[in-house]
C-alpha cells in the first residue's frame, strides 16, 4: 500500500507538468545522460523555453487544446 503511494508520488511532478503540456525536464536529463552521454544537455531554462515555444507556435498545425 505504502509502496503504491510512494510509486504514485514519484510521478507527481511529471503529472503536474504534463497536465499543462510541459515536458518533464528530469526525464529529459536522464534520457540524455543514458543515451547521449557525450552531448551537451540543455539547461532547465533552455529546455523550458523551447518546450513552450513548441507547444504554442502551432507549427505543423499542432493543436494543444480543445473547445
Amino acid at each position, binding site marked *: 500500500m505504502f509502496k503504491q503511494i510512494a510509486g504514485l508520488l514519484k510521478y507527481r511532478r511529471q*503529472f503536474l507538468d504534463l*497536465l499543462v*503540456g510541459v515536458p518533464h525536464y528530469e526525464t529529459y536529463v536522464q534520457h540524455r545522460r543514458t*543515451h547521449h552521454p557525450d552531448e551537451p544537455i540543455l539547461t532547465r*531554462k533552455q529546455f523550458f523555453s523551447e518546450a513552450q*515555444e513548441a507547444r504554442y507556435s502551432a507549427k505543423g498545425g499542432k*493543436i*494543444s*487544446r480543445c*473547445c
Partner: protein
Amino acid sequence: MSIHNEVCGLRGNWKSIVLWCCVSLLGAVSLAIVALRRGETVNAVWLVVAAVCFYAVAYRFYARFMARRVLEIDDTRMTPAELHNDGKDFVPTHKGVLFGHHFAAIAGAGPLVGPVLAAQMGYLPGALWIIVGVILAGAVQDFIVLFASTRRDGKSLGDMIKDEMGRVTGLIAMIGILGIMIILLAVLALIVVKALVGSPWGMFTIACTIPIALLMGAYMRYIRPGRVTEASVVGFILLIAALIYGQSVAESTTLAPLFTFQGETIAYLLIGYGFVASVMPVWLLLAPRDYLSTFLKIGTITALAIGIVVVMPDLLMPYASKFVNGTGPVFSGNVFPFLFITIACGSVSGFHALIASGTTPKMIERESHMTMIGYGAMLTESFVAIMALIAACIITPGIYFAINSPAAIIGADAMQAASTISSWGYSVTAEQLTTLAHDIGESTVLSRTGGAPTLAVGMANILSNVAGGKALMSFWYHFAILFEALFILTTVDAGTRVGRFMVQELMGTVNKRLGNTESFAGNLVATGICVFAWGYFLVQGVIDPLGGINSLWALFGIANQMLAGIALLFGTTILFKMGKKAYVWVTLLPTSWLLVVTMTAGYQKLFHAEPSIGFLAQARQYQTALDDGRIIGTAKNLGQMGQIVRNNYLNAVICGIFMLVVVTVFIAAVRMWYGIASGRPYTLHEAAYAARDSKSKEGVKSRV
C-alpha cells in the same frame, strides 16, 4: 500473441461475473429511475450513478472488444515514443500521467456549455445522448484516431487523411478544420461577452488575469525557470485575491463604472486583445495563463463532482420540457437534429481528433494504454458534460429560462420576464429573479445567455451548499465565471495562433512565399485575417436579434460534428484497409448517424421556413421589413437591419460550405471503400512494425 485470441468476454472468473452483473444492474436501475419516475423530483445522484455504470460497462466490454478484435492492439509492437525517444516530445510516459495530459487537453468549455443549452428540453434527452453518444461515437472516434496516429509515428489528422484518402480530400478537410476553428473562437468569445456584460465584478477579475499572467510568465522565465507548479500556486493566490477584491470594485460607485461595459464594447476589446495576445511571445502571457486555467479547470471540475455527490441536489427541470417540440427560447429547432448538434463535445467532438493526433500519441508507452487514454479520457469528458447538465437542471426551471432566453422574447424587466415565463408553465416570480441577482452580486440575471452564467449559478448553488452558504454565493458565482472566462480566453489566444498557421499553410499551397511562417509581416497579416474572421462573427453574434448563441452555437455544433464525421470516415477507411471488413460497423454506425444529423441540421439551418431556425428565412424576414422601412426585433436602426440580413446570408454560405466539405469527403471515402471491396490494390500507410526486444517481455503480458 495470446491476448488477441482470448475471448472478449469474462475469463470464467466468477467474482468478475458477479461484479459486472451488479454494475450493469445498478446502471439499469438508476437509468430507469432517471427516465421513468414521473410526478416527483429525481435526485441528481441517480443520473451520476447511471452514467458511471454505463461508462464502466462500456469501458470494460466495448472498449476492450475494440482493442482486441477491431484494432488488434499489439503490445509486442514498439510505440513511436520508444522508437524515437528524444526525452522531450517522444517520451514513453506512465499511462496515468499521460491520461492527465490528454484529458486536460480535450477538456474545454464545450462540454460545459452544450448540455446547459440542451437543458431547455429537459434533462432526459440530453443525458441519453451524452451517455449513448460517447459510448458509441465520441470515445470510439478518439480511440481510433489515437490508434491511427500512434501507428503512424504521431502524425496529425490532416496528414493522415492526406496519406490514406488522398491529397485533395486532405486539403478539403483542412479548409473544414479552419472553418470550425473560426466559428469556435467566435462562439467561445461570445460566451465570455455574454457573461461579462454589465458585470463589473467579472470584468475586473478577468482584467486582473492579464497582469497576474505576466507576473507568472516573468517568474517562470527569469526567477525560477521552468517551475510551473510554483508559479501557478502564486498565480492562483493572486487570482483569488482579485476575485475577493472584485466585490468591492462592484460595490464602489467610482470603480464599478470603469468595469461596466456594453456587449459590443467587450466584443471589440476581446478582438483587440486577441490580436495583441497572439503576436506576443508565448512565455509572457499565453503559457502562464494556460497553466493557471488548466489547473483551475481540473480543480473546479473535481470540486463540482465532489459537490454533487455531497449535496445530492434534486433535478428541478422536468425529464422532458414542453420545448422538445422545437419552440424553445434557448435554441430553436426540434430534438432531432438540433439536440445532437447542441451537445457536441461531451458526446462526440471532432476537435478531439486533432488532439488525439497531437502530442499524446508520441508519449504512449504501450499500445494497450490507448484504451484508457483514448476511450477512457473521453468517457471522463462525457462525465463532465453530465455534471454541467446537472448544474443546469437543479436550477428552478423558471429561473433557468429567465437566464437563457434572449431579451427579444422575455423583455428586459423582471416583472414582464416573470409573467412571460410563467405563462409557458414554468412559474417564477419577479422577486425570485431579483433576489437571485442580488445573491450572486449581479445587477440582473435576465437574458444572461451563452450557458456560462447558468452553469455558474448552478455551481454556486452546489458549492455554496458545501462551503459558505448564501453569504458566499456571489463569490462562487464569480469564481465559476472566472474559471470559464479564463480558459476560454486562453483558447481564443491559442486558437488564433493555430488559425494563423492554417491560414498560412493554405496560402502556402497557392504560393510558397505566402506560406512562410518565419516572416514577421506574414505572421501579422495571417493573424489579422484570423482575428478579423472570428471577430466578424463575434460582433454579428452580439447584435444578433436572437442573442447570437441561437445561430452561432448551431453552426459550431454542425462544424464540430462534421469534423467528427470526417474523422470517423477516415477511421472507417483504415479499418477497410486493415482488412477488418467484419468490424467496420464500429465506426460506420456513428459515422452514418453523424452524417444524417449534420446534413439534416445543415439543411434546416439553411432552408427551414421558421425564421428562428432557417438563415434564409430570417434574411427574407428582415429584408421584407427593411423594404417597408420597418425596424423589427432588437435592431436599433435600418443599418443594423441590413447587417442582420447580410449576416444571415453569410451564415447560410458558411453552413453550405460545411455541408459541401462533408459531402466531398464522404464521396471520396465511399469511392475508396468500393475500390477496396472490389479488390483494387491499396496501401495502408502504417509505420513499419518494430518488435520490442525480448528483455521487456512484460509488455506482452500486460492486459488490454
